[in-house]
């Protein structure tokens, strides 16, 4: 008997092209960027690239800008994930009911999700615009605001306004995932709970919420991974400003790498961000996965 049969050999042959592509487009950049992070590469002096070990990592941990960016990213991610998940559950609860216009509303739900990120960023930038923005116009007309404000110029709320734009785009997918999970809850559980004497809130707590855990886990992991690495909205709406009010980790990596041209420290920051994202996702899966 041969070690590998015909089937195994053909399988290996068929898998090889995909494996080769994956090695080139995924494995190589991961390994190469790690190599870059261990060298002091500055693009203004391209021929000088000394090996510095983990000095780049130590340097960024000593950098106050890095910790500010970590704090901003944490706030931004927490707001995005919490609000997106909360709204997604509410929207899913609504669209899981049968009422006139439910199908139309379900279809409309997909519009923000289908909007390209750049379009989304520009749209919200215009909505927040201090001279012709919709938000100013609306609030002044209903009397909630006396005069037009420079919304994105206020460091106290900039991050929240960008988060709002992100939530608007991300919530529909999260809601869809929740609806799918809700549809899988057996109707008999609700009927049993009604006979047992559970009111609508108790039915939500004892039947819906526990059954939503798989969907919740998916949404939490996905939203955390997306939000922590958000970049496009920051590029389009504020470019880190006003001051450093929207200087998140992704934006800092961009500035460090492509504006300051310090590829070594930029790669080290990217690695820290990637490992953090992975660790957070793992923690969510482990924490919620145990309870499913």
């Amino acid at each position: 008997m041969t070690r590998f049969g015909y089937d195994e050999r053909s399988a290996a042959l068929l898998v090889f092209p995909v494996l080769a592509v994956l090695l080139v487009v995924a494995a190589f950049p991961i390994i190469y960027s790690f190599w870059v992070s261990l060298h002091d590469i500055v693009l203004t002096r391209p021929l000088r690239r000394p090996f510095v070990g983990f000095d780049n990592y130590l340097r960024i941990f000593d950098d106050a800008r890095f910790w500010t960016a970590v704090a901003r990213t944490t706030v931004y991610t927490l707001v995005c994930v919490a609000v997106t998940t909360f709204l997604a559950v509410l929207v899913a609860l609504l669209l899981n009911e049968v009422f006139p216009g439910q199908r139309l509303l379900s279809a409309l739900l997909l519009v923000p999700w289908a909007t390209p990120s750049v379009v989304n960023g520009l749209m919200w930038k215009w909505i927040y615009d201090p001279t012709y923005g919709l938000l100013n116009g609306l609030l002044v007309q209903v009397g909630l605001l006396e005069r037009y404000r420079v919304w994105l110029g206020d460091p106290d709320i900039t991050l929240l306004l960008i988060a709002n734009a992100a939530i608007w785009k991300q919530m529909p997918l999260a809601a869809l995932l929740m609806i799918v999970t809700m549809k899988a809850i057996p109707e008999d559980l609700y009927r049993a709970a009604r006979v047992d004497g559970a009111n609508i809130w108790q039915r939500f707590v004892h039947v819906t919420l526990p059954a939503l855990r798989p969907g919740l886990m998916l949404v939490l992991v996905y939203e955390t991974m997306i939000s922590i690495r958000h970049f496009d909205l920051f590029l389009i709406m504020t470019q880190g400003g006003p001051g450093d009010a929207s200087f998140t980790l992704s934006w800092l990596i961009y500035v460090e790498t492509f504006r300051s041209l310090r590829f070594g420290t930029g790669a080290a920051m990217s690695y820290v961000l990637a490992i953090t994202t992975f660790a957070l996702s793992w923690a969510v899966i482990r924490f919620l996965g145990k309870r499913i």
Partner: protein
Amino acid sequence: MARITCAALTKSYGAVLAVDALELSIGHGEFMVLLGPSGCGKTTTLNMIAGLEEISAGRLLFDETEVTWTPPHKREVAMVFQSYALYPNKTVRENIAFPLRLRGQSASEIERAVGAAAEQLEITHLLGRRPNELSGGQRQRVALGRAIVRKPSVFLMDEPLSNLDATLRLSMRGLIKRLHQELKATFVYVTHDQAEAMTLADRIAVMKGGLIQQLDTPEGIYERPANIFVAGFLGSPPINLVEGVIAGGAFTRGDFRLALTNPPQEGRAVVLGLRPEDVSAGGDVTARVELVSPLGSETHLDVLAEGGVALTLRVPKEWRAAPGDRLSFGIDPARLHIFDKASETRL
């Protein structure tokens, strides 16, 4: 215990009438079985009694109190579902305790009640487990536990044994019967399984198309079916139904002739009903054996009598027959059922 009265109880979904002006009175502590094929309205009726389905028209009374619009939890009913409907995230203990917790009973009361219910159903050793760690039979016992722990006056059961295998179904059937005897509560039980209906019921309501076809004791329904549908729905193998006419005081179909004790009017088109077991050895009916199906305790014979009348007979295992044999057997005219061909009702 409670008496349940359905007065012209109706349920419609748009133009579709699921239950049509149902009149049914279920006595204190009675075990009533709603029997019928899928879509006959039996589960809808049960759901209306439970309060899970809004009543389109008519009234529902528990004893003398009208509960037509009373929500489920205020009706003092407990329900057992075909799917068990156990809360997957809760342990067996928490599942059984859930209705009591919602009623705000104290922890010690709950613990005592859950312990008693678990003991009665022999599931004390399962209290710490979750539903996905239980077998089908164990899950159904837990579902029963959640029902009995509240000590309701009415138990509603929606095909509770349908998901179990044949052996388990038999033992669970015994358990439900024992519970009914011990609890002395009113049971309303929905099934499409005639064996379950026959063994459990004090009375059976056979339903079709949202209407009760016959309401009687199991014996009454089996011995005196009100129409062809009821006759055909109960019995395994099913009753033999042969179309023919009344001629000379006998049922006639070609050369096949059976004398009747109390024949309907001459020339009337009728359907003859003969239970497979209502035949005796030796007699004036002759037939050719087509198929022999020995079952150990008895034998089923498919035979072809005169006039091309095909019959299935359930005979003792001692009857020796082989395909192609000529067989003589007797039919007691008193055991025959005659139905009007046009109206399909018993004559």
